[in-house]
């Protein structure tokens, strides 16, 4: 197990280097000039050029890359052009929102997805199964921003139950109660992604039911629901673990839209705004961190999967 983990970890390094080069290139090929955006309407071309030089944006591209990479390796992601603050601290400001949003979304997915998946599997082939699978698929077919708009309209504007937008930190006045700001956004994110978990839980449950020890348990006259509870937990966990890596990418993607609709001060909206402002260091920093996170999470998922399911060979 340890050897397997080390090997996987080492294999990450070239991938990460390639990813960093891609990130850098993508961002620097974007047209538009951060100096011009920063100086605003009345700046003269000379002023823009001077600021461009000052920010080091006129050096050859490969030098800029090596310089950036060197700093990144020392934990320095550069300085935000727009905020004038270190990129790392700008990202850290958004991290709380994004992490809590992701956690709450996973909670929604688990509390919605696992029970529905289990019910679908135990009532396999009946109308319950059909409605559950169909419903999940319907939710997966809704554009997130459209769903978000209507949730705000219903739960915030009409009913007044939940806040419409924004998110004050849980360290701010209000404490943990501020998490209510994330209830609607996390549900918006969870709804389309729950379908995958439902299908995986259902499929793995059905597989288990065909296995010998379960058949034996059935034959001994154990009630179907008892069989389900006994085996569901482990299998649901495996399914969730497997789906987590896949879902993570989808969550990050859709968080960009959700954070925009709900005006959340998270990393997703930071990326969109930074693209609009041509704040290269922030775009680079955020994408790099997300890519690294994605790879690490996938590694962890694989390891967890190997640990939970002994059938996976550690080659």
């Amino acid at each position, binding site marked *: 197990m340890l050897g397997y983990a080390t090997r996987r970890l080492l294999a990450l390094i070239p991938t990460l280097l390639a990813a960093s080069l891609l990130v850098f290139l993508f961002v620097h090929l974007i047209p538009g*000039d951060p100096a011009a955006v920063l100086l605003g*309407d*009345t700046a003269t071309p000379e002023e823009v050029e001077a600021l461009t030089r000052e920010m080091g944006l006129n050096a050859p591209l490969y030098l800029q890359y090596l310089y950036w990479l060197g700093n990144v390796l020392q934990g320095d992601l550069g300085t935000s052009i727009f905020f004038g603050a270190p990129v790392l601290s700008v990202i850290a400001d958004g991290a709380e929102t994004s992490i809590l949003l992701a956690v709450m979304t996973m909670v929604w997915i688990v509390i919605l997805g696992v029970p529905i998946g289990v019910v679908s599997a135990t009532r396999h082939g009946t109308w319950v199964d059909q409605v559950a699978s169909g419903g999940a698929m319907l939710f997966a077919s809704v554009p997130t921003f459209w769903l978000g708009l209507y949730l705000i309209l219903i739960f915030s504007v009409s009913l007044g139950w939940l806040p419409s937008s924004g998110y004050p930190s849980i360290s701010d006045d209000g404490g943990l109660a501020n998490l209510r700001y994330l209830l609607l956004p996390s549900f918006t994110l969870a709804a389309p992604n729950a379908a995958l978990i439902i299908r995986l839980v259902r499929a793995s449950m059905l597989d288990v039911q065909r296995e010998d020890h379960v058949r034996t348990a059935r034959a001994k006259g154990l009630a179907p629901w008892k069989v389900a509870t006994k085996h569901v937990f482990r299998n649901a966990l495996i399914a969730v673990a497997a789906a987590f890596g896949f879902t993570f990418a989808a969550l990050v993607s859709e968080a960009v839209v959700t954070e925009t609709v709900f005006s959340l001060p998270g990393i997703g909206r930071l990326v969109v*705004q930074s693209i609009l402002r041509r704040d290269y260091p922030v775009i680079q920093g955020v994408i790099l961190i997300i890519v690294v996170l994605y790879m690490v999470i996938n590694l962890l998922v694989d390891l967890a999967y190997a640990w939970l399911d002994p059938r996976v060979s550690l080659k």
Partner: protein
Amino acid sequence: MTLNRPLKTILAAAFAASMASTAYAGGTLRYATVGEPPSLDQHVVTSDLATTIAHHMFEGLYTFDAANAPQPLLAESDRLENDGKTIVITLRKDVTFHDGTDMTSADVVASLKRWGEHGSRGSLLFSNVESVEATGDHEVTIRLSKPFGPWKNLMAFINGGPAIYPASVVADAGKAPISPENYIGTGPYKFGEWQANRHVELVRFDDYDSPSGAADGYAGERKANFDALRFIPVPDVGTRVSGLQAGDYDYAESIPGDLFADLDANPQVTTIVNGGPLFGLVFMNSKDGPLKENFALRRAIQTAIDKVPALQVAIGPDKLWRANGSFLPKGNVWYTEAGAENFSRGDADTARSLAKEAGYNGEPIKFMVSTNYPFHYDTAIVYTKQLAQAGFNIDLQVYDWATLIKKRAEPDQWDLFFTHHGFVPDPILISVMNDNYPGWWTTPEKAALKAKFTESADPAERQKLWGEIQALIYEQVPTMKTGDVYTYNIASTKLTGLGEATLIWPHFWNVDK
């Protein structure tokens, strides 16, 4: 079924939580902004959003009253000597900076000098300034090379204007915006914190000494009633509206015209129409391309356009726009109808023959517009249709704002581009008057009139000269005004003291909830 209970529990808990903590923002005004300001340094930044926040914190020597006339703010009085070539300003003696030090003439001189050298609008005044000196602890003397009429208007215009900072802050500051830890001003609110992406917060300055006199526009008494002002970026306009209706914000800016009727009728929402209109401008390229020096062709384009349908589409209710050809609105001292008969002719046939006379043979005309401002895009769509009907071959290029401002600096990239302009108290501040502004309108006729306009100190003569400049704009068409747009903001009905209209930027001294 199985889900009902946990779901209900969560909703109930959330409901209880939201009830329990409504006191959370008791003394805080929550303002939903269109985005995040680049910096709050008023000398160098001209963003309206920055000023909306910053003018609670920074003050200038002068400000505007409700009639847009300059009134003293940090200044106490002033007198002109030497045929208007020397300005002597006496400062108020009771003014304290947020760091506890007293404001003296040294601070004012240092601030004016930085603004004059590096400020966005400073060179307008300082190209005529020979010296700025402290001639007493609370007296500043400015010597001009020739009389300069709009000096007080320029000083009162805080956006890109001469805010007064402590000398210690401005001494080493160059062109780069000063950083938030150095935001030290004299206003009723002081800088609290800036959390990137989350909010900018100002807190009440307890040692503030208000100017005397009844509140009148931005002039007169300033009383800070809120503990804090919190400016929260909410870029999505739909979210700003629903957030205000749901009670998450007390004030939200820049709301689309089409929602006006509904929001105005809503008993929980106050609508506040801005007193100073903004206006769209379509700039023409004077440096390169088919429109360069071809004034006849530009007039043909101007003739083809009927501004009214575009305003209807882009803005909506009649109350919120005027098809007004004067660059400054009716009622303003600078209002003039000179040249405005050509503002909105909408005459495709005449335009077609004018274009033919101007030698136009269907060459593509590149028209750049951004989708970041929906009213730009909506207007450009209507114009493009109208121009096509008059036989123009318009190549509409849609970019995001950052790409557009990059491209407009390159003369070979465009022929027309769309932007808008905020309300300004003196026409000298309008962008087309700036020779360096993209479009680069620098004809000898303009130069001659502009020189006369800035040298004159006589209000009547300056008004007459402005009329001639406006007529020249309609003749040489460096830019086309699209009409006045009265933007509006919305507020919770709990807020009191907002007044009927916003002067230029909303202000929250003398406001309570």
